[in-house]
């Protein structure tokens, strides 16, 4: 019998990865990172979240014992295929532009009868002791847009307004370090330490970044949503904490998702 095994060994892979960065700075850094990602792409643990989310989608939940199959993400109750590629969108029933995560919370509260506090309990998970239903649900729903082109309705007036507000926020400098999103994401080919920074002011940059979230973060062993990404960049920006599902979070998401229009959704991806 012949058995060949390949294992994703974190400690080993990360050390080898770090060593190769040290040895080969400059242009090849990006290559090394690409290779590392490729090696893991085949077995992206994001799939574990997708599977959990898919199960959760179908079972009756909350005091009302209602499943997400009644939840309308914009394409009709329970329709997930292609839904993520058109979010954020305006929902007349909530009279609000919503991204995926806020819409999921809305369905939990309005349809399943959960309290808002319960629905928002674990927005960002941390290991098996503190798992996030929202992250799993988001991974599942997003995965159902794979290969579908981003198509956020920028001609819808509410969405358009959020897009414009999001654009302002992107350039809003403040705090102790005078940072705006544009400080770190406004030029081509820049990096912080060794981390490449996407130029989100360019359509290609926004497309490449937006279409890969949610993503499995190897360094955290967690699947993270776009809400998390924004939250953590604001932390690095030395701003106060962005509230989950707040209007500002949705405006920025609308801006970046809208900029990504036309590109095929390619997540949930795997990242550093």
């Amino acid at each position: 019998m012949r058995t060949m095994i390949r294992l994703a060994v974190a400690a080993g892979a990360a050390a080898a990865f770090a060593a190769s960065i040290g040895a080969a700075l400059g242009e090849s850094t990006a290559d090394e990172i690409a290779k590392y990602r490729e090696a893991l792409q085949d077995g992206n643990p994001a799939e574990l979240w997708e599977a959990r989310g898919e199960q959760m989608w179908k079972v009756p939940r909350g005091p009302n014992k209602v499943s997400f199959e009644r939840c309308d993400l914009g394409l009709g109750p329970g329709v997930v295929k292609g839904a993520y590629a058109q979010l954020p969108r305006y929902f007349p029933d909530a009279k609000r532009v919503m991204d995926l995560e806020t819409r999921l919370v809305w369905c939990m509260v309005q349809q399943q009868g959960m309290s808002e506090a319960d629905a928002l309990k674990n927005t960002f998970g941390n290991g098996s002791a503190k798992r996030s239903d929202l992250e799993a649900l988001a991974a599942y729903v997003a995965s159902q847009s794979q290969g579908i082109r981003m198509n956020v309705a920028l001609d819808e007036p509410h969405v358009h307004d959020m897009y414009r507000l999001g654009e302002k926020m992107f350039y809003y400098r403040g705090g102790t370090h005078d940072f705006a999103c544009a400080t770190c994401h406004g030029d081509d080919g820049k990096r912080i330490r060794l981390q490449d920074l996407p130029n989100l002011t360019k359509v290609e940059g926004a497309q490449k970044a937006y279409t890969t979230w949610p993503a499995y973060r190897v360094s955290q062993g967690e699947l993270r949503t776009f809400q998390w990404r924004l939250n953590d960049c604001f932390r690095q920006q030395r701003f106060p904490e962005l509230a989950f599902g707040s209007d500002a979070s949705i405006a920025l998401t609308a801006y970046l998702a809208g900029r990504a229009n036309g590109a095929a959704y390619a997540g949930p991806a795997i990242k550093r």
Partner: protein
Amino acid sequence: MADPMKIRANLVGDSTEVKVLMSHEMETGQRKDAQGKTIPAWFIQKVNVTHNDKVVLAAQWGPAVSKNPFVSFTFKGGARGDKVKITWVDNHDDSRTDEATVA
């Protein structure tokens, strides 16, 4: 209880290629939490794979394997419709078995 594994088993030529994702913390026992307390070791120690009840892989793991491990391996033989069964056991004696059909 632990989450199900995600298993894919495909016939490639005269071999079966198996890809498995397992949901597990894989704590090394060397990390500390925010309060500086050591987080106890918790990791998969044994992995056993059978093909139609015959063992094709038996592995001993240590704490160096990544969180939510991914394993891929190939064994000779196999046919569409065959069963591949995978079991892991961790150092808490917790275990999980899942099965997939070769496609």
